[in-house]
């Protein structure tokens, strides 16, 4: 019986946890409830993935109302792996968060923090799992609102402005999506994605569809921080509590990208003729400029969080580059990088979190010789950094390799070359940090206390768990690639 209820449980568990946390209020208990709920989510997502692999698409009508009328949850090989990814990353960061949150967030607000986290998680999972266009918007709002709140928990006042800027941009994005869905509804009379995909080809007004398409694309581009619309991201990632940054970096933009993929390929996918323009005129330049310019910007940043934030935008550029190829190989590359980058970036932000936990800052020039005091943290940063660069045997290599292969397969040599150029930039910005950590003699009088001063074990263990997971998937890259290629086939084939 449980098996049939899994899609609903995926959302309900974190949603349930939130009010209970508010009622309980004690911070330790709140954390425990959040962790337990999150682990259950992981379990559910794991089961769902297994079920999808076994029996194909799973559909779940909410409230017993059948599909085109009611809201439907729809799990296939595209979103099932992402459900697991988001739930797992959230769980890992949450396990890691306890000490970090204790230090950076006011103790009588912990329960609100974890409640918001749970809401955010259920919003993200909801965006992934739902098969209803309007429901996507609802879950988008749930996750966004709780995200604004989480960001505003940041320790200094700039967190508030960062959160506010994100709120304005995020709301614009969300309303664009809403407008687009409205147009779609007006043109087709349906909100169910599956139904939409069938109705769009013979919709009464093609213009309405086009307008809907434009609005939804732009809205989702804002939410997924694709290059010229990325400006909210750096501040938000910089000033939010570092655990929130780690969580968001691995999940929020990735989920938006998934919705983008869904709309592009599954919903509108039947009409390639007008998407051609979007792919070649908007997405491709955005992707290429994104990963080049943002990598350059990352090189010059002095704060690690900002550096990684810009590098995130650059990495999203790779994903979009894969998407804009619009081929099986390209989508596989984009999809696999969604998974891989989520793991890499979360691990990187977690290691920065350890640094901040001990030093109170993440200012690159003052991390002289950090390896002496925090060897494990530095090792984690460097290993994940190598993965970001795309050194062989890491997940970064798997995605970059497939991306370059896909670009070449389509004959876009230039793009393949530019991807390599941007990898060199990644070497530079990660190298600058590694250099300071490993080799720089202490120049300032006493910036870092001497002797071992490693972050607590409760932070290190989840971080290394994630790193080992990503290393494993780097060595056995064909596993994730198989998943991604299955997803790409599903996306290109439209709804089945």
């Amino acid at each position, binding site marked *: 019986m449980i098996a049939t*209820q899994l899609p609903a449980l995926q959302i309900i568990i974190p949603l349930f946890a939130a*009010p209970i946390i508010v009622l309980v209020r004690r911070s330790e208990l709140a954390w425990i409830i959040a962790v337990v709920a999150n682990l259950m989510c992981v379990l559910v997502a794991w089961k769902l993935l297994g079920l999808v692999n076994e029996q194909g698409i799973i559909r779940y009508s*909410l*409230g*017993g109302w059948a599909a085109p009328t009611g809201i439907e949850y729809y799990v296939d090989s595209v979103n099932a792996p992402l459900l697991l990814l988001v739930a797992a990353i959230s769980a890992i960061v949450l396990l890691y968060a306890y000490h970090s949150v204790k230090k950076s967030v006011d103790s009588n607000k912990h329960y609100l923090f974890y409640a918001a986290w749970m809401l955010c998680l259920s919003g993200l999972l909801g965006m992934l799992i739902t098969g209803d266009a309007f429901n996507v918007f609802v879950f988008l709002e749930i996750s966004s609102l709780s995200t604004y709140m989480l960001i505003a928990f940041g320790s200094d006042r700039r967190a508030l402005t960062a959160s506010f800027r994100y709120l304005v941009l995020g709301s614009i994005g969300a309303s664009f999506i809403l407008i687009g869905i409205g147009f779609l509804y007006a043109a087709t009379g349906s909100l169910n994605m599956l139904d939409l995909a069938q109705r769009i080809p013979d919709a009464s007004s093609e213009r309405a569809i086009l307008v809907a398409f434009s609005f939804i694309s732009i809205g989702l581009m804002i939410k997924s921080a694709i290059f010229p619309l990325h400006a909210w991201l750096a501040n938000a990632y910089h000033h939010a509590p570092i655990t929130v940054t780690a969580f968001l970096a691995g999940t929020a933009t990735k989920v938006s990208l998934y919705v983008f993929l869904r709309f592009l390929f599954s919903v509108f996918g039947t009409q390639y003729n007008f998407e051609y323009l979007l792919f070649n005129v908007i997405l491709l330049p955005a992707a290429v400029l994104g990963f080049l310019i943002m990598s350059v910007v990352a090189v010059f940043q002095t704060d690690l969080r900002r550096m990684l934030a810009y590098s995130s935008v650059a990495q999203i550029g790779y994903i979009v580059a894969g998407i804009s190829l619009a081929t099986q190989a390209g989508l596989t590359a984009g999809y696999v990088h969604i998974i891989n980058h989520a793991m890499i970036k979360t691990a990187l932000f977690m290691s920065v979190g350890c640094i901040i936990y001990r030093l109170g800052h993440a200012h690159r020039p003052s991390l002289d010789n950090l390896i002496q005091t925090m060897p494990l943290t530095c090792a984690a940063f460097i290993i994940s950094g190598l993965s970001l660069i795309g050194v062989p045997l890491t997940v970064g290599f798997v995605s970059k390799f497939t991306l370059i292969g896909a670009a070449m397969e389509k004959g876009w040599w230039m793009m393949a070359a530019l991807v390599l150029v941007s990898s060199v930039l990644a070497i530079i910005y990660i190298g600058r940090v590694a250099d300071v950590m490993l080799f720089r003699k202490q120049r300032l009088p006493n910036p870092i206390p001497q002797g071992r001063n490693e972050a607590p074990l409760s932070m290190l263990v989840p971080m290394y768990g994630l790193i080992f997971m990503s290393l494993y998937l780097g060595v056995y890259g064909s596993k994730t690639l198989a998943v991604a290629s299955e997803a790409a086939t599903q996306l290109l084939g439209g709804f089945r």
Partner: protein
Amino acid sequence: MKLYPRQRHRVLQVITKLIIPFVMLFALYVQFHGDFGPGGGFQAGVIFASAFILHGLIFGLQHTRSVLTPTMLRVSMAVGVLLYLLTGVVSMLRGAEFLNYDVLLHDPIHGQHLGIFAVELGVGITVYAVIVSLFYGFASKR
């Protein structure tokens, strides 16, 4: 926002005391009539909250806070959401989909009745608590 001290505006204070019960009653009407006529949890919640907001405007925030403490608001918020979710979960436990009210009682029509009723009550409680919290939040800012 300027809050009026207690000893002034006697007329307003007396009238307010008279009105508040009716506002609440109307809110409850909108709440429980929602499944048949216009209304429902959102509207009812806002109307219910407006009773407290009016109280706060006339008698001062301190006074209202002692009537309806922030702790109660917090609990109401959580309870509202839980009520909503529990309704869904009960239908799940009875072997149907989440929020499928058909199975709540012996026959689908009564089940739908009860389901809507419970869910809307949850919504109402949460909305009122959130609106009052917003009022507290803004009003206590100088």
